[in-house]
């Protein structure tokens, strides 16, 4: 267990070091989030602010994820850490955690932008909104990070195949959408006891557990 945590920390440290040094991906994500927020707000307006928030967050995550995973692939087209003497699920798990951090940054940027242009504080929805944000990020990051790591290894068709992954997020979005409706109308007690939120938590746990294992099996078992 200690080794597992140590390896994850090493990989996270390495990724954060690269991102903070290069700043290219962070800049890219920052500009993308702001631009999409402004475009989204222009066309949809202030009436569906929370839905717009999650929609923009999703689009930005879809685009950003591929760039992030590319770092793990060598110039020869193979996973750099393919020959490590420990389960590859640890690497996948570390990348999921790293992408959760990047997604938090995306969400924060979108939140600030939408709050500024709309003059409405989304944060008025408080704990419900924050909880839903985190659950949303965890689920989307799990699926996207796993598949982008797998597909970046494939030259040529890999890009197209990554687009084919997008439908996998749809079931997760159905649950998230139902919870978004509850953010508007519920107090915290009702929100946390709602079936859709509990199902979302269950799926997050399932995805967080299953995706790294499947990654390991797909590459090396």
């Amino acid at each position, binding site marked *: 267990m200690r*080794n597992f945590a140590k*390896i994850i920390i*090493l*990989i996270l440290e*390495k990724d954060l*070091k*690269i991102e903070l*040094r*290069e700043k290219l991906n962070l800049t890219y994500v920052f500009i993308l989030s702001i631009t999409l927020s402004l475009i989204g707000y222009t066309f949809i307006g202030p009436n569906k602010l929370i839905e717009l928030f999650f929609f923009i967050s999703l689009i930005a995550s879809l685009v950003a994820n591929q760039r992030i995973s590319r*770092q793990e692939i*060598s*110039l*020869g087209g*193979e996973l*750099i*850490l*393919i*020959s*490590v*003497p*420990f*389960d590859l699920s640890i690497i996948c798990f570390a990348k999921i955690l790293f992408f959760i951090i990047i997604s938090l940054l995306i969400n924060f940027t979108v939140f600030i932008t939408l709050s500024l242009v709309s003059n409405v504080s989304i944060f008025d929805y408080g704990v419900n909104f924050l909880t839903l944000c985190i659950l949303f990020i965890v689920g989307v990051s799990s699926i996207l990070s796993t598949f982008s790591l797998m597909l970046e290894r494939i030259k040529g068709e890999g890009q197209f195949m990554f687009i084919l992954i997008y439908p996998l997020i749809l079931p997760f979005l159905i649950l998230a959408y139902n919870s978004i409706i509850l953010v508007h109308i519920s107090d915290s007690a009702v929100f946390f006891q709602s079936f859709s939120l509990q199902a979302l938590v269950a799926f997050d746990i399932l995805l967080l557990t299953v995706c790294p294992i499947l990654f390991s099996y797909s590459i*090396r*078992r």
Partner: protein
Amino acid sequence: MKKFHDTNFKLHLLLSKVISMGDSLSIRNISKSYNHNNIFNLISFDIGPGQILNLSGANGSGKTTLMKIVSSQILEYTGEVFLGDKNIKNLGDEYFTKVIYLPPIPSLYENLSLIENIHFFTSIIGIRHNDKAERLINDFKLTSHTSKKISQLSDGSKKKVSILVMFLMNPDFFILDEPYTYLDADALRTLNILINKSTEEGKSFLITDNSIGLKDINFSGLVEL
């Protein structure tokens, strides 16, 4: 087509038995095809402790594929690979402490420096490297490049770093795919010294390359595809 040339094999085998009683890698009847095209058929050979085998063949004969099978990076093939008496498919992640594959194109983090790459790879495997790492950096004349990012290094320097990291990991079996590509004469010499010295410690090598770097290596045998 497979052939196994037995140059000085018995003497080398005797020597390696004196040096180390480690396990051998046994490749048995390996066949591989892609999309119904046969790459190679029924390849068998052994790599004992302290041995250096030369894997040769024309372009497209499947040398890299065979090396990836031996280093357990390709899982779909017929036949078996044994480490000692254990099938490598049953060994799991432990196998990667014993066998390392060096790809032709260096596999490093381009945005980390030389020393950061070394630190990362050795830490993630749990190896303490300080003296040996310094010595290897000196041997490969990389001292002035330690704080440069990998992306700023030449292809030759990247190859040296890649080789250096592999020797720091210190496996029992080194699977080297075109290790001499990009290397200058000095680095070539350094690599050959390292290889010959490692075999005295019981380490084994499977090497494929078409360059003149091979001429200073005392091969135990040849595998032809």
